[in-house]
């Protein structure tokens, strides 16, 4: 058996031969900035690892390197926004969520400023261990009133969500997939809209309600399950806040199928708990299960191994669904 290497995981989430786009965020932002003179880019010594270097190369006069100082990054973005600009700021999810929280809460969100925070390494997308794994960011950012929270599934979502964030008036937090990012949603109708769920496929036996890269995984799982004559649907909810409550309530009205919430985040306070709360308040009697990372400091290691270990790989999802049915 080939041993997987830790370093392999930081490169890409894409499977061999999967269609990918390189740096969808950086290229989209650079394109938007051609007609939007209010867009500026700011980073805390992570331009290269958040694809913001693409923007920096195409619009060098609008790129601000703020140094390895995340509190400054967020508050100075607030200052820029107060002067009428639309800053896109990048760092890793862990540093935005844990180091700069007060600055995002008070300096940016409290006055509904037009700052767009795009953070790489969300959830379990690096094997570097807890210092770099942003497995708690959705819980942290869901707690900020009025902040839009987006967890894109693939390069298509990243491109469309970047544009939507630029057009939205108010603060946005977006989980960022960087590098060679898989393209999955080209094959489905519709496009990303803030606050809107998308029913990517319908299913009579199982409905996955998922966000982020877990949508990619449950689509694969649904295909695999159809081989076992299990009809599984996928309701993709790339906007974690505000949640598309109507879509959840509607999905719960249909009797006789298992609802499974799925996210790339630990259980406390994440997307799954948000959906489950809505179900408890307004839902029917559908049985429900949760796929999420455990409430723990996760291991370091190779990403595929960790996804298997913590139950968010396609293979483990298929196994668990069969066990639940």
């Amino acid at each position, binding site marked *: 058996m080939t041993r997987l290497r830790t370093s392999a995981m930081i490169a890409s989430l894409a499977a061999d031969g999967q269609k990918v786009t390189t740096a969808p965020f950086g290229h989209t932002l650079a394109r938007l900035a051609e007609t939007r003179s209010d867009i500026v880019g700011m980073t805390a010594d992570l331009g290269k690892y958040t694809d913001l270097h693409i923007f920096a190369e195409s619009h060098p006069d609008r790129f601000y390197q703020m140094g390895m100082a995340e509190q400054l990054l967020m508050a100075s973005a607030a200052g820029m926004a107060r002067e009428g600009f639309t800053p896109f700021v990048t760092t890793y999810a862990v540093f935005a969520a844990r180091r700069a929280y007060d600055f995002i809460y008070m300096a940016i969100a409290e006055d509904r400023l037009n700052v767009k925070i795009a953070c790489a390494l969300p959830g379990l997308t690096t094997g570097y*261990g807890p210092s770099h794994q942003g497995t708690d960011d959705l819980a942290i950012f869901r707690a900020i009133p009025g902040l839009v929270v987006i967890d894109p599934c693939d390069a298509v979502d990243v491109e469309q969500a970047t544009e939507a964030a630029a057009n939205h008036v108010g603060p946005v937090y977006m989980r960022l997939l960087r590098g060679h990012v898989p393209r999955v949603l080209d094959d489905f109708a519709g496009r990303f809209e803030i606050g809107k769920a998308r029913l990517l496929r319908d299913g009579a036996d199982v409905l996955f309600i998922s966000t982020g890269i877990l949508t990619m995984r449950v689509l694969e799982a649904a295909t695999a399950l159809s081989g076992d004559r299990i009809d599984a649907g996928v309701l993709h909810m790339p906007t974690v806040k505000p949640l598309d409550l109507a879509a959840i309530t509607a999905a719960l009205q249909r009797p006789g199928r298992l609802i499974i919430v799925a996210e790339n985040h630990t259980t406390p306070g994440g997307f799954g708990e948000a959906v489950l709360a809505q179900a408890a308040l307004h839902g029917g009697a559908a049985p429900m299960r949760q796929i999420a990372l455990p409430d723990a400091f996760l291991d370091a290691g190779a990403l595929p*191994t960790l996804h298997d270990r913590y139950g968010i790989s396609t293979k483990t999802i298929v196994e668990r669904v069969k066990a639940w049915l």
Partner: protein
Amino acid sequence: MALTFQPLSGNALADMAQQNRIDTARMFKAAGNGHFGSCYSCADIVTVLYFATLRIDPTNPDWPDRDRFLLSKGHAAPTLYSALIRRGFIPEDWIAEYETHVGARLMTHPSRRYQAGVDASLGSLGHGLSIGVGMALAARLDHKDYMTYVLMGDGEINEGSVWEAAMAAAKYGLGNLVGIIDNNGLCVDGRTDDVMPMGSLVDKWLSFGWEVSRVDGHDLNALLQVLAPRRLMGHDRPHMVIADTVKGKGVSFMEDVRSWHSDSISNTQYAMAMAELGALQ
């Protein structure tokens, strides 16, 4: 054990610093890539600390009287791992499993969960000096004479938390605290001076109430002198050692090249590096 260890000096110390670079290259080879530049700039500093300066005991890694060492620039972990191996804290055969699989005992960043002899889990830059302030305060509270050394990168000094710690260390007169800045002039996005220039580092630390030494971070004898513990000398100011270093030092094609902050290495490059370092293959 610790008290009978003969500190290295001269050629033996220099050889150990090269051994550290060789071990690091072997770990990165096992993993496929690594932070070569960041490790090689501080290999001499870490070697001096572990083989001439620190009061430590491999048979008793949690010895309460040990000197503390915090690798705040946690991404240079292999440099620390080599020192721990060569001092006998952990076995040499762990090198081959560096980052190779989940559960490997040597991973990208040091962790108290995995390795004996590691004083804190680090990797989020800007944590080390604040943790060190706490350890130095604890030493005073326990009436212990151990020293606390914190090794930081120069880019790390951008973090405001470093300056919070700087003020606190001066306030409490922590003469048992030594900071070391691996001043290699490069960080992820470019030259430190372009990313966020630090101006006069010496003036900054002086104005924050620290004693400041500036030293060639690859001059082993100079490092020996400046890092020597002052536990009996009654110093009442924290001490910042600004060590001017070269990223990738020791391997000619890596020296002062930004991409080697973190990069993959080919078989040919690996052979060239090992030859330059004098490794037997």
